[in-house]
């Protein structure tokens, strides 16, 4: 198990810069998730760490040792691919023992390690099968097993759950969290799904356009987004963003944009209202209700209410924004300090 240090990582493909200077350090045993929209460079960053891509500039250290020019096979990392990349002509057992054979480990030790991993992942009955005879979830577990048997310095996951159906994804997500708790390795996980990021990560790295937008624990990112991008990206449904002048009683000041999460918008009496909105769509989920509304100038506003609602499309609804949870962003899109009260009390 090991820590990782990235300094000034840049990666260009011809004249296109994919990574524009990434600085990051990951502590031993940490579960770090790279999240961002497609094309933000998160997979490239993972492949750079793996050694499958060379860097244009910058350096990579694993446990303090410089590995920037070290081949992928010599970095001692294990990777779970989005496509699983199981060797189709080998049985599950052979798939899991291939790396160990390459490392020159004794046969008895290989058998013991494969056996242990198979038991941990409930694959014992499938060891003699070929990947083609396995279900998606089983293939996924074999791919993870192939990484576990190696006892690698760092586990790398490249969108490992994106090919599973919704139910299996939730189940496997839990298993991954349990696995991390059990074996405690350093894990780096790439996803575009912010729910996966929020539930799995010790720390989340939000990437956009080849740059790191913010690094922090899931709740730090949720409560104190550093800029408009993170504010809009983390949280589902996404944070409402409104021009400051639209909201009654807000001084123009340095803040150009106000952000308020759907759960912090409260229906209220006309007299106390910050805004009056027109309901466009009502989503009744039973335990909670999402109201999709339009503020003046057709700016969309999402409202989350507990329980069930009697509102229908076309209704006018006066709403109030919880002042403690208001996020303020300046004209450049950066968060204005001081922070909302609640977030400050957390940190």
């Amino acid at each position, binding site marked *: 198990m090991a820590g990782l240090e990235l300094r000034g990582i840049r990666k260009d493909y011809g004249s296109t810069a994919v990574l524009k200077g990434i600085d990051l350090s990951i502590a031993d045993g940490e579960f770090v998730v790279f999240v961002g929209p497609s094309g933000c460079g998160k997979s490239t960053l993972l492949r750079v760490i*793996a*050694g*499958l891509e060379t860097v244009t500039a910058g350096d990579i250290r694993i446990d303090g040792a410089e590995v920037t020019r070290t*081949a*992928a*096979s*010599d970095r001692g*990392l*294990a*990777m779970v*691919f*989005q*496509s*699983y*990349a*199981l*060797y*189709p*002509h080998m049985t599950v057992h052979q*798939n899991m023992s*291939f*790396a160990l054979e*390459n*490392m020159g480990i004794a046969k008895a030790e290989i058998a013991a390690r494969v056996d242990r991993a198979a038991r941990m992942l409930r694959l014992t009955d499938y060891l003699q099968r*070929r*990947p*083609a005879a396995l279900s*998606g979830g089983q*293939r996924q577990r074999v791919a993870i097993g*192939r990484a576990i048997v*190696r006892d690698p310095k760092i586990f790398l996951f490249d969108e490992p759950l994106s*090919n599973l159906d919704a139910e299996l994804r939730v189940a496997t997500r839990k298993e991954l969290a349990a696995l991390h708790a059990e074996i405690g390795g350093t894990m780096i996980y790439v996803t575009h799904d912010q729910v996966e990021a929020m539930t799995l990560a010790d720390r989340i790295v939000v990437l956009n356009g080849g740059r790191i937008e913010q690094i922090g624990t899931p709740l730090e990112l949720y409560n104190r987004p550093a800029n408009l991008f993170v504010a809009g990206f983390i949280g589902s449904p996404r944070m409402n963003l409104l021009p400051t002048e639209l909201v009654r009683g807000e001084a123009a000041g340095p803040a150009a944009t106000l952000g308020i999460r759907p759960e912090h918008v409260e229906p209220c009496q006309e007299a106390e209202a910050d805004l009056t909105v027109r309901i466009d769509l009502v989503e009744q989920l039973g335990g909670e209700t999402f109201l999709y509304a339009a503020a003046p100038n057709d700016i969309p506003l999402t409202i989350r209410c507990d329980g069930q609602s009697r509102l229908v499309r076309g209704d006018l609804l006066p709403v109030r924004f919880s002042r403690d949870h208001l996020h303020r962003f300046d004209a450049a899109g950066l968060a204005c300090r001081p922070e909302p009260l609640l977030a400050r009390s957390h940190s």
Partner: protein
Amino acid sequence: MTGKLRHLLLARRGGASWHWTDVASYAYLALGVLLMFGPVAWLALSSFKTPAALLEFPPSLLPMAQSEVSVPGYPQPLPLFRVTMEDGSVRELAQVRRVGIVAQMVDPKEPAQTIRVPADRRTPVRHMALAVENYTDPLTQFDFLRFLRNSLVVTVVATVITLIINSMAAYALSVYEFRGKSVAMLGVIGTLMIPITIVLAPVYLVVTKLGFVDSLWAVILPGAATPTGVFLLRQYMLTIPRDLIEAARMDKASEWRIYARIVMPLSMPALAVLAIFSVMWRWNEFLWPLAVLTKTEVHTLPIALNAFQGELQTQWHYLLAMTVVTLLPVALVFAFLQRFITSGIANTGMK
């Protein structure tokens, strides 16, 4: 088994009765079988004919020989004919000699009396006869087993070398990114179009300088790296998912191990195709071995077969029989390897 065969031979496009397209399909397929298999069948049947039967006109499909009988008073066995007599009766008579349009015949039961018969009133009595000596003579007298062994050595060794060399080149050209890759690829595709006849003289000079003339290596080595094979394998290897190779790299596999344990097994369909091609090329190769193999003891089968074809006389019966022997191994290799030419499995371990 018979059920399957029945199904195969009576399959229709569906529906209760025969559609005209069924009939057309079968007619077309029958024509195909006749065109493809007819010459081979005729070759096999003719290889059992005696030299006389081969020159017979009109030719017969089955190997037939004229029946002969020993008649007391005549030292040689006489050919037997069926003769229509003047009174309309038909008798089986042996021919003593023929003079112009009249044949002098004898009844084997009454050897003392000869009968004169017009030559056009008799037809030969024939029976099926396999001239097995067409096969046994060359195999014993002409040392055909040595040529067979030479051909086997050339074919097997050359095919193994071809598969190894070509797959390594294809691996490099499909998996690696390097400067000059497209130039190398262009070179490979460019040389695809140059036939051996064009480069015969320069290659001959190289082989001579290396001292390979009159050794089987002279035939094995020059053709080992075939552009066709490199191109074929490269195109196939491009379809193997990159993730598999990267997964192997992450699994600490050396490049040799990735090549041997991942890429080669997954390229089996393309390797089988190339193996079949290579076996056929090498087994049937004629011009190049003829140029570099001058001593009889290193001749391969096609060159040895050529020996039956003299300037004045061709020993068709031996030539046909040995052609059949030559065809057999290739047919067997094809039957064995075609099982591997199924769709690839390279993608079955992926999502």
